[in-house]
Every structure is written in structure tokens, then in C-alpha cells.
């Protein structure tokens, strides 16, 4: 495969991966700018290794998701002292007219943001990405039992939070 062909293959993959990875990053990184940084960094890493990935990896999207998940969890361990979260005023301004939809979405993101990082990651991968327990365990580098217990704890908290935050109590 020529370098140009490899680049074309990566570009096609990256276009699809951006769409797939950004919701995951947004829901788990809390800060939208950091989430986009994470997606970009993940894809840059994949670009560097793309020739090898093309030869040896069956599912590059799953591979990319694992890189993103582990990068985020590692960052959160490393930067635990760093608690500031950027609030994008422009983003809120643009979406503030969408009424209940926005209110519901804010509730979901706000509720997810309340969870500890690993619970948030497990819940998002398992129930919003729709991955089986085995795949979540592989991405998070832990056992299936840990995924189940972590997800259960996260869902318990989410139920309480979403119940409290959903407008008009409708759920």
C-alpha cells in the first residue's frame, strides 16, 4: 500500500470515527473542548500507527474507542488535582432556545458529570454506546464483574439524578 493510499484509507476512517467518538468523549470528559482534544489526539495516534493497524487490527473503530477510553482514564488519574471544568458560554447561548429538549439533554450530561470517572465511562459504554459487558471490560482494561458492579453503582446514582433533574418530573 502506498503512503497516499494509506492516507486515503485513514481519512475515510477518521471521518466516520469523529462521528462515533465525539459523543463518547463529550459524555465522559465533561469538558467539551477537552473531549475534542481527546478525539483529535486519539486519531493522531492512530494515524501514526495506521500502517500497522491496517495489517493487524480487525476492528479499527473498536481499537480507536479503546485508545480514547484508556487515554481519558489515564488522564483523569494523572490530573486528579485538576478540577476546573470549562464552561462554553457560547454553546449554552446557541442552544438555550430549544426548550425541553435542551433541558433534558442538560440533565443527562449534568447527571453523567456527577458520576465518578469510571462509573461514568462504564455506564456510557454499556448503555449509551450499547456495548456488551465483554467489550466494555476490554476497553476499560478490567474484568466483566467490575464492569457490572461499576455500571450498577452508576445507574443507581443516575436514576436518582435524572429523576430529580428531568423537567416536570416526566420520565
Amino acid at each position, binding site marked *: 500500500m502506498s503512503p497516499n493510499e494509506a*492516507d486515503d484509507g*485513514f*481519512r475515510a476512517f*477518521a*471521518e466516520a470515527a*469523529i462521528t462515533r467518538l*465525539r*459523543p463518547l468523549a*463529550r*459524555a465522559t470528559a465533561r*469538558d467539551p*473542548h*477537552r473531549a*475534542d*482534544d*481527546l*478525539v*483529535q*489526539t486519539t*486519531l*493522531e*495516534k*492512530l*494515524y*501514526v500507527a495506521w500502517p500497522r493497524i491496517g495489517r493487524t487490527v480487525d476492528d479499527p473503530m473498536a481499537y480507536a474507542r479503546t485508545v480514547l477510553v484508556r487515554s481519558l482514564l489515564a*488522564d483523569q488519574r*494523572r*490530573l486528579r488535582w*485538576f478540577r*476546573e*471544568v*470549562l464552561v462554553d458560554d457560547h*454553546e449554552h447561548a446557541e442552544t438555550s432556545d430549544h426548550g425541553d*429538549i435542551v433541558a*433534558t*439533554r442538560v440533565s*443527562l450530561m449534568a447527571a453523567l458529570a456527577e458520576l465518578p470517572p469510571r462509573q461514568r465511562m462504564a*455506564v*456510557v459504554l454499556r*448503555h*449509551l454506546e*450499547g456495548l456488551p459487558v465483554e467489550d466494555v471490560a476490554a476497553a476499560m482494561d478490567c474484568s466483566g464483574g467490575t464492569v457490572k458492579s461499576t455500571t450498577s453503582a452508576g*445507574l*443507581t446514582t*443516575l*436514576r436518582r439524578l*435524572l429523576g430529580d433533574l428531568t423537567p416536570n418530573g416526566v*420520565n
Partner: protein
Amino acid sequence: MSEIHLLDERRAEYHAVDAPEFTVDEIVRRGRIRRRRRGAARGAAAVAAVAVVGTAVLGPSSGVFRQASPEKVSPAATTSRPVAAAVGCLTPALKRDDLARCEDKIYEWAQLTDWPMSLNFRNPPSEKHRKARDTMPEGTFGMMLARSRPGEPDLAMVFEELKISMGRGALAGFPSGGESITLADGSTAIVTTVPATGDNGAPGGVLSYVVALPPIDGVRAPLVVSLRTYTADGYAGRTPALSNGSDADARSLVEALIAS
């Protein structure tokens, strides 16, 4: 209603994200840089180009900077540039990747000087060339190039750090004094030097260049390039002198960053 059903209903919201502000072309471009650096790093000496926390970038310069509100900035600290969305490679858009497009320029600049763009031998391998923006506090982006040189006869190795950061007014602060100079493109920069003295009597310590970029939404974004020297443990308080050419290095880097 079960928790799972609760989340099922929200999958549509979960997937509904706005359009990205980056492109695949940008990712490919930075991926090429990353690939090139990884190759270059294998033959490089043990010197550093590491990510640093933006506020920590300014930490060693205490006495040079103060936490000032924009209205307290001296008139000289206001750039002479017209209001623009971008200055050179800088995009003071109040986001964390304000300096993200500067990697190429910094790399090219380093290749023409004695400053290396290489590894920090104290970092674990997994952190080599990790993007600075991954560790920045929001609103600030910083990079650091580091090198060392033999000290004077009674000093251990002298370490020099050239730090590039960009923050927002209240976060980064502005110099309270210093000399106002005109850069090659007509911009105004404030230059300050901490009056530290090396063992050889030469002035040294921290040299800083600050260029106040046009305000975005009323918030000023200063570009700060500072060069700091220090020596090994056991010589605390004995700041070694800045090496010859330090001023030219800092100035040329500032000019490279803001050049169109």
C-alpha cells in the same frame, strides 16, 4: 421505569453533538508531525520538550507578573495590532488549543537554534511528545523547551527552560513593568528581566516577553515567552546567568509565533 430504559430514551440526545471545529486534514497534518518527531526522537539527546501547566509556566516568574485585571494593564501592554481573529499561528479564541497550530512553527524555530525539541529523560516513555494541550488548564496552553549547559566552575549543570504560554487576562496576568519594544512586524512587546545575578556577576534569572493579543469578547489573551535559568539542587538561590543570545532567542521565537 428501569434505569436502562431511562438511558435508551436518551440515546438520541447522546449522539446529537454539534459539528466539530477540527478537520481530518488537521489531524493528518498533526499526525505527520507526531510521526516525524517520533522518528527524530530516537536519535536525540536527553533534553526536553514537555507539556507544562499554564499557570505553573508563570509560577517561576513571580515578581515579574502580577494578577492584574485588564483595565490595570499599562497602555504599553496593549498590542498595536488591529483586532483580528488570529495572530500568526495564534488563535486566541478562549479555548484550550489557542497555540495548537503553533507546533510546526515552534519545531521549525527550534531546528534553527540550539534549543532542542526532544525528550524529557525524566518522563516515562508513554508521555513522550504528549501534546501540551492535554494537560493545560482551560484557557491556557503552554509548551516548554529545555536544555542544559555546563555551569561556572563551582556550579553544577545549568538548566534553561524556554516556556511558551498563552492565557487569558486574569489567569495569566501581565507584567507590571518592563521595557516596551517594537517587534519586527510592528507589534509591541513588554520585556522584563528578574534582577537576579549569577555567580559570574552577569545579570540573569528570568527573561520574559509578553505580547498582548487583541481582546476577544473583551478578554485579553497574552502570549508569554519566558526564559528561565536555574541550577541543580544544592545551589538554591544562586541563579545562574542567562546564556549569551538568550534575549535574541526569546525575541525571535515571539516573532516567529506572531508572524503571518
